[in-house]
């Protein structure tokens, strides 16, 4: 079930009615949310509910044992069970065919013929998200930073909470579980913020991202039919599309959660305003980048072992971060690109200061922002290509003339993406992602009406899946 579908609106309305009907008892509310979450997930493919349940059961019991166990070897064994189960499921469903095909190709290069053993595997939606989320629980208990949750229902809700189940934010057990295990106070301010987040999220998804997709898809589907500025516009359109698609989803998820009384972590903090690679990863897909930092980069040694080790750790983290996005070489190359940027940046600026206020030296800050944006856009080319030969084709042919098709693409690109700019500049200047909610009543209501009218009129009707569902 997609957020941008009528079915979801009806579903959410029904959940709200039931949820507030039992508001005197938060445990009943948790039952309602758990049932709704499993129903929500089952709408994609009910067969995969079993995987979700398996992940939940394993980590629930492993968590309890981990907490009770004192002997280090046994604790490591228990953690290993959780890792093997979760990463085993993820690896099989997401990466089996990729590694089987890659191994066959490698043997072919070495002159050895092998039949590729591939299986017709369907990727369960959201598996990368909930696997990482539930792993954070066992990791934190292993490190004695968290106590296991008593109620199985509460833990199952933590794993399956429907607003963020299929595309994040990847919540930490230490943040979300405390909100689940105690009564929620649904505050009017939260609902107000939630309404704005949902509205703006839907606008970013249905209007900007989906309209950009109409520019992007044909170009990447048959790239040789396009050249010059058309390629550049398609790439810029994808830069806007992926941001609006994913941050739109996160906003809707966070808005829905707020209305239910939960506070999910902010996943996007104006990433295209980043001044450097380090700053970018504090703003882009924050729930994943901080997960990778806390559960991979720091355990690998972080920046504690000197320059070379730091760079090795960055490279491993970013390569795996790239692979997390999908079982394809272009994602690994994209991860390597960002790993290289981070490593190089570290050499020049070992103590990065993020998000310097631009009042000091606006020209310098804008220059840094511009450079980082160009590097990011190049990264999106690596990310989006359907075949690797598209990379040199784009790079060699992007600088060229502007024909009739290109002019029309520019018109559509500008027409549908411009609302992003004033809103984001406003959010950047005020450092408040909810800046529009601070307007006085009349202009605020006019803005809401305009956003809503934009969704109704300019929203792409055919529901397009969110890009990050495939990850």
């Amino acid at each position, binding site marked *: 079930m997609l957020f941008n579908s*009528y*079915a979801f609106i009806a579903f959410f309305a029904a959940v709200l009615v039931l949820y507030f009907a039992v508001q005197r008892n938060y445990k009943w509310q948790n039952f309602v949310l758990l049932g709704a979450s499993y129903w929500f997930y089952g709408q994609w493919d009910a067969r995969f509910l079993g995987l979700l349940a398996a992940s939940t059961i394993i980590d629930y019991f492993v968590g309890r044992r981990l907490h009770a166990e004192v002997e280090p070897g046994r604790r490591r064994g228990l953690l290993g069970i959780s890792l093997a189960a979760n990463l085993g499921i993820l690896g099989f469903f997401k990466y089996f065919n990729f590694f089987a095909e890659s191994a066959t190709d490698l043997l072919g290069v070495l002159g050895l013929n092998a039949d590729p053993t591939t299986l017709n595997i369907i990727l369960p939606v959201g598996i990368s998200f909930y696997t990482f989320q539930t792993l954070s629980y066992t990791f934190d208990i292993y490190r004695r930073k968290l106590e296991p949750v008593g109620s199985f229902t509460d833990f199952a809700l933590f794993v399956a909470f429907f607003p963020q189940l299929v595309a994040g934010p990847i919540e930490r057990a230490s943040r979300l579980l405390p909100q689940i295990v105690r009564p929620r106070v649904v505050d*009017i*301010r*939260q*609902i*107000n*913020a939630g*309404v704005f987040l949902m*509205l703006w999220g839907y606008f970013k998804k249905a209007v900007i991202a989906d309209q950009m997709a109409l520019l992007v898809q044909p170009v990447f589907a048959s790239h040789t039919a396009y050249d010059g500025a058309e390629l550049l516009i398609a790439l810029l359109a994808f830069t806007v599309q992926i941001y609006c698609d994913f941050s739109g989803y996160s906003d809707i998820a966070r808005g829905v959660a707020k209305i239910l009384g939960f506070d999910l972590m*902010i996943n996007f*903090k*104006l990433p295209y305003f980043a001044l450097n690679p*380090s700053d970018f*990863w*504090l*703003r882009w897909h924050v729930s994943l*980048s901080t997960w*990778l*930092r806390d559960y991979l*980069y720091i355990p690998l040694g972080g920046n504690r072992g000197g320059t070379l080790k730091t760079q090795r750790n*960055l490279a491993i*983290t970013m390569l795996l971060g790239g692979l997390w996005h999908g079982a394809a070489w272009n994602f690994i190359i994209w991860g390597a690109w960002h790993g290289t940027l*981070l490593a190089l940046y570290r050499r020049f600026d070992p*103590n*990065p*200061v*993020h*998000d*310097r*206020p631009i009042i000091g030296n606006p020209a310098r800050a804008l220059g840094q922002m511009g450079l980082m944006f160009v590097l990011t856009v190049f990264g999106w080319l690596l990310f989006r290509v359907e075949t690797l030969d598209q990379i040199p084709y784009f790079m060699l042919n992007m600088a060229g003339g502007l024909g009739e098709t290109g002019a029309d693409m520019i*018109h*559509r690109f500008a*027409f549908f993406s411009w609302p992003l700019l004033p809103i984001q500049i406003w*959010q*950047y200047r*005020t*450092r*408040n*992602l*909810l800046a529009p*909610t*601070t307007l006085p*009543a009349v202009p*605020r*209501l006019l803005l*809401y*009406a305009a956003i*809503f*009218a934009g969704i*109704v*009129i*300019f*929203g792409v*009707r055919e529901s397009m899946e969110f890009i990050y569902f495939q990850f």
Partner: protein
Amino acid sequence: MTAPLNGQLPTELIRKTNWRHLAGSILTLVATALLLVFGFAGLLSAEPELGNPTYNAFVTQWQRLKGPSARVETLILGDSSGRHGVDPKVIDEVLHTTSVNVCTIGSAGLINVAWQIEAYLARHPVPRRVLIVHVYDLWRREIELPLMSHVPLPWGYWNRMRVSPDLDDETTWDLFLERYVPVLSQNKIVVGIAMRPWDPPRWKIKFDQSGFSAIRNADPEIFRKDVRGQMWTATHLEFVIGHQSREAMTAIDELAGEHGFDVFLVNAPIAEVLMQDADFKAYYDNAQIEIDAMIAPLSNVHRILRDPMRFPAERMQNTDHVLGEAIADYTRAVGLAVAVFEQD
């Protein structure tokens, strides 16, 4: 990877508010929705030419079918190749009959033809014959939801018809929105107006009184693109007669048997350049064999112009729409084929 978050990154500052403000926000959204829904519906009824031209043409032909001018001996149905290719005046001359062209569009599929016949029989005397002009690559198609929503029959009509598609609740809801909320179903029009307010797009497909709609001008670019598309179809897709098309043909045959009229299934005109291509010709010939097998058990459906009439590029707008004098040539061939069949 990086230092912990510092205070410079944007965050969320939730302002104080009250129920009155929240209610104001929600009421604003509801009022905006109502304004858009009724405002656009009003705009479209005042200026129909702003609407989707395909929907307008589809509804125009349906209304013609329901009106008194459709009381004829020969009913011409089918897709746009018939709408632009079969001129009732020529049919009248050749067959000494009265006829009307109520062809619509390929995306409506054969189920729409079956519904048109059923709706016609409910309002008018039984015709002597029905011609169905159909392009070879449309047999796989089912009716598209937006077109189904625009059939000008009372809501739920599909359940009362002899042949009916399976609709789940979600599809029925989509159908409802398509039918009654034009701001959602025809938003491309509003987008067009908003993108070029100084020159809003207006379309009108012109018909004569008999329902015929001639294409005046050749467009070599459209023709070339269509040839490429048809070649792609022939080399990449297997010819398939869709389930809905089969059911529709069976229903049409039953109606013909019950009411006593003949149905002539006519191949659309086709571009010569396609038939000169060996791969395409093989694909097309195979399609004819499949169609023969499908209608073999249908005793009231007869095929004419099984070997299709071919035209050079300069006499066509695309690979199945004829232009200029080719219209009369094609229509005459259709009429003569019917006459020959009826004499036999």
